[in-house]
């Protein structure tokens, strides 16, 4: 705004004349003409075709409503507040049979989000590691990585999930399970890992992380809006946003505590228990998408020309610096958009949970549709939720992509 006002005041005379000529030119096209231009050629044909689609849609929806009426189901979302008489195996929020369908669906959505977010995070870490290992000059390692990638890429994800599920069920019972460093136990009742938590605070560690994430996002958006976002201010904002909730917890007297899982009686107590279904789903998603991301990372790094390495070496940089300062900034331009679509695919593929019995959004929607008969509404909720997640994720990744993209080529 400032900029425009300045240039207006100091604009040379010639500019003002141009402005004048434009004003007295032919009248700008009206709204109707604009719409007509946008609608383009073959106007009536388009209209007829769209009318046919609309008629088909109306016919189908009409049939669905009629069929629902015949079996005595009232269309609409009123069922959300009636009580759901099923149990959910695991849920981030408390859920008992008798709670509302809305609560059940939220529990399913949170499960989907939990496994998707964790999956994206772990798949990225593992994928980058595997991708870099695949580029290693060591023949044995790169060959091994090649085979790992080919096998995971060329077999169905569902098959891999079944395999991990069979493996999870075949693990020893808690009594026979041997711990890894006495901290992680793989048993047929799930995976036990150490848990971290705060004793005596108003909220837990997950909530603290959630607050930190939201605060970071808000601060970054604010900085962007005021045009003060730089690498440094972004880091400071992130640091503050993460430190604040934990500092608050410590100030009000909460003490951090860690708990190791330990065998007591016939079961393992303490620590965090990941159910076999969750562990299998997460492992399957992480392994499959790590292989995909590894391929993307490899392609990205290989897309950086040899000359770049040679020039950087000639400047006397050593390998670590070359990768961080020269190769990665260029490789990220290739990697980021491809990884984004991997993340979207991972989120969508987390819906395979329904096949191995993890209560994600899809399986809750399925149960809801079967118990209430409101299948259309349930599926509308399902598709709407996934569209929203997808749009949000791709919007976030677009912001990041704009940061790494070639300056001047932003679109």
């Amino acid at each position: 705004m400032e900029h425009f006002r300045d240039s207006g005041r100091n604009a040379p005379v010639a500019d003002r004349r141009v402005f004048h000529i434009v004003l007295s030119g032919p009248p700008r096209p009206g709204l109707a003409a604009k719409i007509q231009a946008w609608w383009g050629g073959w106007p009536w044909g388009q209209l007829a075709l769209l009318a046919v689609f609309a008629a088909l849609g109306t016919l189908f929806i009409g049939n669905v409503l009629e069929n629902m009426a015949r079996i005595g189901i009232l269309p609409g979302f009123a069922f959300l507040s009636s009580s759901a008489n099923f149990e959910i195996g695991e849920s981030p929020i408390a859920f008992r049979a008798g709670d509302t369908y809305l609560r059940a669906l939220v529990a399913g959505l949170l499960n989907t989000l939990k496994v998707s977010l964790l999956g994206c995070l772990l798949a990225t870490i593992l994928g980058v590691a595997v991708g870099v290992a695949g580029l290693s000059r060591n023949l044995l390692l790169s060959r091994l990585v090649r085979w790992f990638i080919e096998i995971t890429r060329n077999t169905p994800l569902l098959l891999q999930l079944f395999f991990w599920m069979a493996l999870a069920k075949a693990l020893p019972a808690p009594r026979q399970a041997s711990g890894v460093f006495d901290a992680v136990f793989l048993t047929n009742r799930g995976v036990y890992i150490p848990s971290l938590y705060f004793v005596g605070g108003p909220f837990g560690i997950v909530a603290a992380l959630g607050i930190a994430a939201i605060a970071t996002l808000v601060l970054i958006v604010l900085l962007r809006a005021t045009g003060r976002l730089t690498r440094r201010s972004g880091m400071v904002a992130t640091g503050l946003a993460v430190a604040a909730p934990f500092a608050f917890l410590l100030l009000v007297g909460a003490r951090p505590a860690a708990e190791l899982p330990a065998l007591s009686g016939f079961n393992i107590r303490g620590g965090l228990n990941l159910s076999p279904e969750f562990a299998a789903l997460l492992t399957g998603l992480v392994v499959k998408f790590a292989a995909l991301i590894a391929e993307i990372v490899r392609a990205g790094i290989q897309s950086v020309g040899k000359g770049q390495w040679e020039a950087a070496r000639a400047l006397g940089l050593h390998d670590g610096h070359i990768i961080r300062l020269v190769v990665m900034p260029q490789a990220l331009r290739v990697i980021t958009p491809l990884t984004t679509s991997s993340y979207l695919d991972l989120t969508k593929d987390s819906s395979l949970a329904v096949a191995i019995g993890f209560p994600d959004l899809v399986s809750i929607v399925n149960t809801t549709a079967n118990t209430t008969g409101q299948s259309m509404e349930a599926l509308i909720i399902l598709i709407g939720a996934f569209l929203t997640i997808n749009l949000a994720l791709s919007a976030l990744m677009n912001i990041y992509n704009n940061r790494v993209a070639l300056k001047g080529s932003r679109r």
Partner: protein
Amino acid sequence: MTTRLARALPGLRAGLFGTRANTLVTLATLLLLWQTVPSLLRWAVLDATFTGDANACTRAGACWAFVTAKLHFILFAFYPPDLQWRPLLVIVLLCAILAASALPRFWGRGLILAWPLTIVACWLLMQGAFTATPIPSNQWGGLPVTLFVWALCFAAATPIAVLLALARRSNLGGLRTFAVLYIELMRGTPMVAILYVAMLILPMALPDGLSIDKMLRAIIMVTLFWAAYIAEVIRAGLQAVPNGQAEAATALGLGYWRIQGLVILPQAFRIVIPGIVNLAIGFLLATSLLAVIGIFDLLNAARASAADPQWLGFYNEAYIVVAVIYFVICFGASRYSQWLERRLGNNGAAPA
């Protein structure tokens, strides 16, 4: 042999023990292999049971006897045993048309005509035409179902995808908006949700008296779903054809459809064929989702085979067999895609 080995040896030594760091990596990798490979080998070969019945199998090793006994079931599931030459013929037909489509020599009008004919022939064979009792689709299963659904949906989705891509690229505002909404809706939705629509909504949406079986409903919805993905790949190809082509064709007095059909689409297809092959590989893997709605495709048949009371619980063996089948097809296809990319890259001109 020995000379080749001698020539490869220096490279091998440099690749494994070139520098100190490299030697360390080799040793670490060997340690990892030492931890995993022997126990795998013991399970798969040394402790495995190759012949006999379920009682002969120990839990310590793999039970390959299970595979010999149940391979038939994994491949054909519940198809009536005395008629299993029909699905076998379907596999042969589909492999033949796929092989013909894979070779640039056969690309042409004949192939486009052969596809629908093959699909119809497969359909007739599967449903037991010309026999006393038709075979309902809930008895179909195994590899032929996987291949058939895949080929049919892909073949049916491609023309829809071409129309969607053309609409999205056109200057017809109404149709363009429709195409964008359709494509983004489909691509934002998981395939499982689409299959649930086929299972739960489609039967209710059809007019009274018209009911179609589960297999056909799944095929319809999967076709509509895949069309959106193929459309995006074709659109990339359309964008890569220079504007001058369409302008030159217009100058020659061709109409829209002839421009697209004779000038633009052939070039666009040639550009995106590797992309389409990659998409096809993904789709073949995705057909396994049919298991979620209870269709006995290859994967579900394998799972069902291990639920046989006589051979209870040999899931790992069943999954390995299926994994090998999927792997052979998909790995072969991805190698083919690389070969094709090189070939099309080498001589951009149309191969005769």
